[in-house]
């Protein structure tokens, strides 16, 4: 294990560690553009120059491997001078159009100019080399003038997606990036290009001009798009979700996120969100207070007794599933979650990068909690036979299944917890408004059996409540209230009874999730 000294502090690192990584572990940020933790080292931007004792010239921190006894100074006079001159060089032809640039606020050029530059430009705006602006590359908008030619996007295209759609064109200070004949970026991982670009050269079409980034508040969460469970930041302002941003987790998604996942933020602010409970009366739908709705369901469940069925949803968090299971146990009815057999596809890859075929975030959690108890077929048969008196759905999946249509029609009372208005809700007798993943605390268990935290970013619209609050409300009316009142307490309860989860709590899950031993479950 080589030992070295960085800025006067001694540190021992793994063999082969580069200076920039070792410094980052110590909390020292060495300015850089082209280095990226999940891409190969290129060393072209020359921004990360540091002074290494006994070396005649400054070295680039991203490609200098630490050797035993190395003494590195990242902020010595020589290094600082190098940072300043490199930055001045990179900014030579940069158009100062920060006021209209979406990157402003999270731009490496801006940040490092404030830290290391603060010089007056020696080049007049009129003398700068003009390049192409607002080039439409499909989901990405290219502005070649703002580019610092760090080649991050090229390396991303080569190493991660393998599509090589971007290239350097021309020479000298006329060099610019572009795609062949301006063809649009066609793969499902284009959004990462905007994230990987340290400046405003590649920007997202979807987020374009929507919001200045300094207004946004990030909440750590997990993408609910599939069983991969990519770590994300939910960027929101005033209770409105504005975008997803990948959160680096080397064991799950590295620094990446797929475009279908990114687009999910739209669902939360949708105008089709349900905001109040309603019940079907003789004259049609009627609004009902949530507490009254709980009482009605409890009454129906008491009447139904063992002739009730409960269908959980793999979109729910572990805590919500636990509360729902407690509801099923309270009446002794049938319980399952498997609509469309998602559990067989949890580990089936959709592509070689991130996505999985199972589009639910928590199928593994359903399996771990033993939600697949009775079998959907048994429930549907009981429905069709007319023996079921009440059916409680945690999500509207079963209403969407065409094969279940006739069977459901025979159940006298169907209550569904739903997030969005849809015509299929007509098949239920009662609709309860449920909160979505951005509005609830909890955990998802991904395909690797890694328990990961999701956090509430803002309140649910109207009277919508989290699914565990809905289940707890009905349980209270049944006279069997849950001891736990929050997601945190529910998880502690859950951990006591679920194998492998023992001893876990929300804090123990941590920001990167907690992997559990993987076993091939049914």
């Amino acid at each position, binding site marked *: 294990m080589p030992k070295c000294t960085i800025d006067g502090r001694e540190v021992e690192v793994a063999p082969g560690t580069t200076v920039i990584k070792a410094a980052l572990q110590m909390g020292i940020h060495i300015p850089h553009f082209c280095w990226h933790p999940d891409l190969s080292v290129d060393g072209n931007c020359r921004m990360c120059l540091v002074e290494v004792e006994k070396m005649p010239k400054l070295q680039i921190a991203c490609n200098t491997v630490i050797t035993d006894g190395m003494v590195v100074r990242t902020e010595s006079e020589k290094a600082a001078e190098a940072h300043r001159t490199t930055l001045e060089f990179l900014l030579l032809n940069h158009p100062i159009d920060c006021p*209209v640039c979406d990157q402003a606020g999270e731009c490496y050029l801006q940040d490092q100019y404030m830290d290391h530059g603060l010089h007056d430009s020696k080049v007049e705006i009129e003398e700068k080399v003009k390049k192409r602006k*607002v080039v439409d590359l499909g989901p990405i908008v290219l502005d070649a003038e703002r580019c610092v030619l760090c080649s991050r996007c090229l390396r991303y295209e080569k190493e991660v997606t393998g599509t090589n759609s971007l290239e350097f064109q021309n020479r000298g200070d006329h060099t610019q990036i572009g795609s062949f004949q301006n063809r649009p970026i066609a793969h499902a991982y284009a959004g990462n290009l905007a994230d990987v670009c340290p400046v405003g050269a590649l920007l997202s079409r979807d987020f374009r*001009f929507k919001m200045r980034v300094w207004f946004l508040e990030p909440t750590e969460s997990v993408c609910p798009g599939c069983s991969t469970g990519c770590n994300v930041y939910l960027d929101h302002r005033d209770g409105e979700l504005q975008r997803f941003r990948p959160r680096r987790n080397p064991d799950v998604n590295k620094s990446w996120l797929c475009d279908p996942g990114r687009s999910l933020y739209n669902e939360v602010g949708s105008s089709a969100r349900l905001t109040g409970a309603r019940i079907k009366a003789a004259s049609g739908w009627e609004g009902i207070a949530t507490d009254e709705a709980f009482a009605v369901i409890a009454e129906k469940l008491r009447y139904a007794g063992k002739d009730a069925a409960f269908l959980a949803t793999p979109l729910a968090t572990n805590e919500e599933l636990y509360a729902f299971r407690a509801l099923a146990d309270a009446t002794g009815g049938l319980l399952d979650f498997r609509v469309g057999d998602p559990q067989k596809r949890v580990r089936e890859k959709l592509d070689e990068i991130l996505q999985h075929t199972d589009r639910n975030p928590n199928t593994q959690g359903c399996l771990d909690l033993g939600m697949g108890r009775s079998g959907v077929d048994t429930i549907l048969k009981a429905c069709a036979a007319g023996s079921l008196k009440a059916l409680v759905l945690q999500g509207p999946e079963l209403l969407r299944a065409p094969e279940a249509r006739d069977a459901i029609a025979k159940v006298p009372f169907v209550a569904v917890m739903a997030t969005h208005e849809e015509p299929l809700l007509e098949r239920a007798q009662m609709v309860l408004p449920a909160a979505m993943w951005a509005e609830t605390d909890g955990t998802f268990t991904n395909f690797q059996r890694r328990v990961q935290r999701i956090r509430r970013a803002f309140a649910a619209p109207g009277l919508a409540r989290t699914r565990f609050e809905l289940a707890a409300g009905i349980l209270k009316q049944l006279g069997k209230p849950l001891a736990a009142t929050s997601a945190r307490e529910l998880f502690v309860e859950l951990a006591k009874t679920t194998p492998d989860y023992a001893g876990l709590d929300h804090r123990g899950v941590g920001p990167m999730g907690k992997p559990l031993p993987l076993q091939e479950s049914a």
Partner: protein
Amino acid sequence: MAARIVTVNRNVKQSFVPILIGMLSTLKYMLRTLFKREAATIQFPEEKRNISKRYRGIHILTAREDGTPKCVACYMCATVCPAECIYIESGERPEKQIEKYCTRFEIDLLRCVYCGFCVDACPEEAIIMSRENDLVGTSRAEMIIDRDRLMARGKVAEQGPGYRPSEHDVRRPVRIAALERLKTEHGIVPGMPERAR
């Protein structure tokens, strides 16, 4: 503790003389106003005070030559605004050198504190202030003034604009003098990073 009533002898004799003195004073000013026209007040709606050229009245959104707003929707004003009274939505312009402009620009004049920070923050001189200070409305909604109303400000033509830093920046010579003093007396050149000094 029980309250204690105290009688204070102010040693003032009641007399009608001070009242007469007061009335004489009133009479003096009345006659002055009547015959010499030396009133301190003005006949407000008809007559207006001469307002400073740097007065911070209701905002103006300036226009380009083609009549479109100069604003590029950079949100600097909305960011700096201490009253959070500016709401902007942005859209795309066909000119690639400008790219962006405001499709909505609203100021809640009831929340505005007329500090003029928005004018200082604007990189395009797209928002300036007028000398207009008589603001009337019958509802709150009416006092939220939108982009088109901010651009079409009829009274500005007769009054001239108000606060507008680049036009008459009285602070500039002061600032230059301060910078000179920093350099000569302390050897500090602003704009250089800490460790390079």
